[in-house]
């Protein structure tokens, strides 16, 4: 597998201008202790698009996702080599503040993880953290909450009991809330780590629809186990295998005319 990963530029995307790529990853290697999880990853994620990542378990797709907002570092034994540039800034530069990175890059987790507080406090959590020195009055807060919840199509359901504990909502609603609480911070990129895997088909459809609505305004990178989901809900698709990027191209091309044998085998379900 020494040959270079294929990166076919999709035709409709603008070819010039600095900001066409939201995330530009250069020669990224990553180790958990002594175990190398990522090998020389080079990825350019287009701005304003939904890019999905697929691959069998342990292929490094979640690891890559979690290194884009550096949440991987919580583990303490992660070592990294290479660069990830987000809108031209290397986020692994020592001068970069984690707080700033996470303001720009929001993350949605596999299991919905609303905080054990009210719905309102959940939506305002990030906002309050990033606007400590600016006093927001009640009316402004209400507006922020309403806007965020409207965007995720949750407002009508919860507007009468915003003080309810967020952990009492259904999983689908919790996951929508987890997306809603990112919005007041105004991130540019949303990372989603299998956001629908804990949801039933109805919830999955609702959240997918929501993600589709959010594209354009946000650059969305979504890891999924579900190939059908990648196919119907993303514009570009990345196939990873054993820590390496095998193929990165427009979703339909990847599924219809995969360039590599491994990709073809995987999407046809011959392994993984």
């Amino acid at each position, binding site marked *: 597998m020494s040959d270079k990963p294929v990166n076919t530029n999709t035709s409709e995307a603008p070819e010039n201008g600095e900001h066409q790529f939201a995330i530009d990853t250069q020669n990224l290697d990553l180790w958990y202790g002594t175990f190398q999880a990522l090998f020389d990853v080079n990825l350019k994620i287009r701005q304003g698009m939904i890019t999905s990542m697929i691959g069998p378990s342990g292929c490094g797709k979640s690891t890559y996702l979690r290194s884009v907002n550096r*949440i991987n570092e*919580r583990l303490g034994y992660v070592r990294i080599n290479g660069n990830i540039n987000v809108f031209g800034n290397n986020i692994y530069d020592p001068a970069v503040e*984690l707080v700033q990175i996470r303001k720009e890059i929001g993350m949605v*987790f596999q299991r919905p*993880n609303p905080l*054990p507080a009210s719905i309102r406090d959940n939506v305002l959590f990030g906002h309050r*953290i990033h606007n400590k020195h600016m006093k927001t009055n009640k009316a402004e807060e209400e507006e922020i909450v309403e806007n965020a919840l409207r965007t995720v199509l949750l407002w009508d359901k919860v507007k009468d009991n915003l003080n309810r504990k967020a952990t009492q909502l259904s999983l689908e609603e919790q996951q929508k809330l987890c997306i809603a609480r990112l919005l007041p911070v105004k991130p540019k990129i949303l990372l989603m780590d299998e956001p629908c895997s804990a949801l039933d088909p109805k919830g999955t459809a609702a959240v997918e629809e929501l993600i589709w609505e959010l594209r354009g305004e946000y650059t969305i990178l979504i890891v999924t186990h579900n190939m059908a989901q990648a196919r119907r809900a993303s514009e570009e698709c990345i196939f990873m295998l054993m820590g390496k990027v095998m193929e990165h191209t427009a979703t339909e091309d990847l599924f219809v005319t995969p360039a590599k044998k491994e990709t073809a085998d995987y999407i046809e379900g011959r392994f993984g």
Partner: protein
Amino acid sequence: METRAQNQSLAAEFDRRNMDWYMDKLVQVLVFMGGISAIVFIIGIFAFVTMEGAGFLFDGFSFREFFLSEYWEPSDEDDPEYGILALIAGTASVTGLAMVVAIPFSLGAAIFIGEFATGRTREFLKVLVELLAAIPSVVWGFIGLSIMNPLIIELFDVPVGLTVLNAGIILGLMAAPIMTSIAEDALKAVPDRYREAAEALGATRWEVIFKTVIPAAKNGLLGAVLLGVGRGFGETMAVLMATGHSVNIPGSLFDSVRALTATIAAELGETAVGSEHYQVLFTIGIFLFVITFIINLTADLIVRGVKNQ
């Protein structure tokens, strides 16, 4: 018919009562008895204490005198007075100060052990905390008597060092380890995904702890504090040695006081069995039992509430 006979013999085969079977039954009975004995003993103790105190409780007990009089004069030949107000004030002031000392220490230690320390440091600290919890109370009393006492006299230029301050600090240090260990359990029970969520939203470590982990663990932390209070109420030896043991409603930290528990410990040996004084001491025992029972039950319910969420 033949198959039925076969089945029966098969069933008999499975139903063999061999050594293992009897062993199993024996262990079952032993474990059951062990489990139920705790309840039996507690009820037994309560019954005993109540019976011994009953004579006074149902005859000559005046709520007004018992709870509202500050005169504890059991050895007055003509008219002994049994008012425990000053003793309650003694216990409460010492316990209160102990909590002021113990809460910051134990919460700080629990946060450090639970959220910051990793690997060896963490294990070492946990063992150390358990070790601290195992120091006998008479040793703490000794420290109060022989180290804190002269230190307080020296530092604050007061005539006696056996005061609310002394006992409060000693009791606070005694209660801190057990509170630390329960508070740390409460912090550990907070699912990691809450921390991850807060961190991914841009919270600093400090904000993760103060805005996410502590609110999520607040019931458990409250339970830890209540158990500390229960410990403070029930502690006898250290309090007896460090308070100065003089009946007094304290006006400042530098007054000597006397605690409910210490009174029982000091006086029970000198009373005639069955006398009024003896019965009054047992009535104090009932009072203490009820108070600590309520505190511990509340703490337990609160901590349990956390787990059920």
